């Protein structure tokens, strides 16, 4: 399977922006240095060969115990070329911030808010980085592996006699 996108990245970024790449069954992925997250994304969107003009998904993975702890994962798709790529960026626990891509793909807005809400990843330059699923009063980021599974934070006082 031709590695069209990975070859393009290897041609364009030679200064260590791309940390690791892989391709299995035609699924190409690249691990990007977080500082170059936005530059790589913009290149892939605007490049005529890659032409990855469609934002598919953005989420986060908490690999507790690993360094760096978090992986931000993004999927891109080319409507014209019909190929796709997965980009990853590892973020350390003490500085889990990365450039926002809302300026490139407006559709990334709510996905970045979700990753912020549930994992506490900060997206620099996001126009409206608020919680999107949990309520504003909620403390913590519940999909982090060290968040207690039943860490409920009720908004209302429970009725007397109710069993949690």
């Amino acid at each position, binding site marked *: 399977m031709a590695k069209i996108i990975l070859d393009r990245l290897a041609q364009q970024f030679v200064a260590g922006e791309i940390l690791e790449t892989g391709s299995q069954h035609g699924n190409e992925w690249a691990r990007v240095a977080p500082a170059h997250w936005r530059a790589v994304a913009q290149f892939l969107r605007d490049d005529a060969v890659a032409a990855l003009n469609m934002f598919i998904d953005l989420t986060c993975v908490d690999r507790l115990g690993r360094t760096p702890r978090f992986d931000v994962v993004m999927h891109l798709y080319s409507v014209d070329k019909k190929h796709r790529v997965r980009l990853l960026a590892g973020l350390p626990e003490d500085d889990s911030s990365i450039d926002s891509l809302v300026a490139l793909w407006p559709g990334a807005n709510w996905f970045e808010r979700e990753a912020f809400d549930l994992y506490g990843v900060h997206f620099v330059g996001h126009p409206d980085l608020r919680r999107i699923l*949990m*309520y504003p009063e909620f403390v913590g980021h519940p999909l982090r592996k060290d968040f207690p599974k*039943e860490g409920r934070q*009720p908004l*209302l006082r429970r009725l007397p006699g109710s*069993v949690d």
Partner: protein
Amino acid sequence: MPFSVYTSKLAQAVNWARKFSLFEYPFVTACCGMEFMATWAPKYDIARFGAELPRFSPRQADLLIVVGTITERQGPVLRRIYDQMCEPKWVIAYGVCASTGGFYQNYSAMPGADQVIPVDVYIPGCPPRPEQMLDALVMLQERIQKGEGHSQVVLRAERGYVAPDVAIRPAGDTREGSGR
């Protein structure tokens, strides 16, 4: 004829009218709603029990049916809807999620709607069959007739309404509960 006997008979008549004229407010949040809708349809036909008319305003409803998972975030919404309903009012929790939280044992799902509002009848099932809804409705009608609904009990305590079970129970029996 003593006045208390007269008023208790009146309460029985009023409760009889209430139980066959329930106006529902369906608070549907999840997949249970698909099964719940069938109770309105001709095959199960909840109209046979006088509860066929859903009112999509809580102010016009006296039966709140909580259908589906309630999250902590929805708690204040559910409580406000319940508070907006005129008394007396009743609540049915449809399905295990509304009753206990079901298989959701996590940071976001509320372990049962009864954490924030009083529930009169619980229906287990994931989702329950429409027959169970009809069964629960009949159970609720029995409670209404006996004046045992949560809000009926509260009304009696707060405003001194005469209980219908004055005539049902022997004199001097002040135990709480149904007395069945």
